């Protein structure tokens, strides 16, 4: 069977995602976990590119890979030693958690494989910035102005609360 370029890219991306997400949750060094998470997020952006969602892939790269991972690495550097290794997870806990996850995985995958998705032959809508911006601010059919406004309020609240929580409180002598 001849592999097309798209299939080859999908195999690479999904292999990287599966391998590095397993490494993210099993590695014993915390900074390495953050680096592996970065690989997973970048491959996810590659999958978005494959499906022709360029805008979403750009958001994924800038916000997830650029923003959240940097934030996580900063907090790692603030709170733990780089050379510190976690103690290994206990056998009992590891086996029970792995059993729970694998059981869930099997249930979901068999359900997915048995379900016949009905194909849709509709013509794909062209995605450009014009369409995205207009539907984010439109209140008509297929408009998203309400979640857009809610998310902006949420971002403001999160920003203020992060500053208030992380602010250094007064020490005993200052009081």
């Amino acid at each position: 069977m001849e592999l097309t370029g798209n299939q080859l890219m999908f195999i690479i991306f999904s292999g990287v995602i599966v391998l590095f997400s397993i490494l993210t949750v099993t590695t014993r060094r915390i900074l390495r976990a953050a680096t592996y998470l970065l690989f997973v997020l970048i491959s996810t952006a590659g999958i978005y590119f494959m499906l022709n969602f360029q805008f979403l892939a750009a958001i994924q790269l800038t916000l997830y890979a650029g923003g959240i991972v940097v934030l996580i690495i900063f907090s790692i550097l603030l709170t733990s030693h780089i050379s510190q290794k976690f103690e290994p997870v206990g056998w009992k806990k590891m086996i029970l958690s792995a059993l729970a996850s694998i059981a869930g995985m099997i249930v979901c995958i068999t359900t997915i494989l048995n379900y016949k998705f009905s194909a849709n032959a509709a013509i794909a809508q062209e995605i450009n910035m014009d369409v995205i911006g207009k539907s984010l601010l439109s209140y008509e059919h297929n408009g998203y102005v309400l979640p857009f406004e809610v998310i902006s309020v949420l971002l403001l609240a999160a920003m203020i609360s992060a500053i208030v929580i992380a602010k250094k409180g007064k020490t005993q002598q200052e009081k």
Partner: protein
Amino acid sequence: MSHAGIPLHYFLIVSTIMFFVGVYGFLTRKNLITMLMSIELILNSVNINFVAFNRYLYPDGLHGQFFSIFIIAVAACEAAVAIAIIINIYRRFRTISVEDVSEMKF
């Protein structure tokens, strides 16, 4: 029923594996930051689902893409607030292991 020669099921299987790897990490990890990373994995796998459904089943709309954008925004908020809380906990207890942080009143 395949876009560029890849059936929809493959995307769903990849995202399922990613989701349950995230669940495994959330159950086994004890460090707060690594638990946060597991949550990011879970949110990301959901995004892949939304995007694949959008492209394969409803190609004439953009609902999946917008839901993914909103999920990414919520994940960013969650990470910012969680890291602020983690830094505050570290300042008070000198550790971020969930087992050592057991008192809420100070």
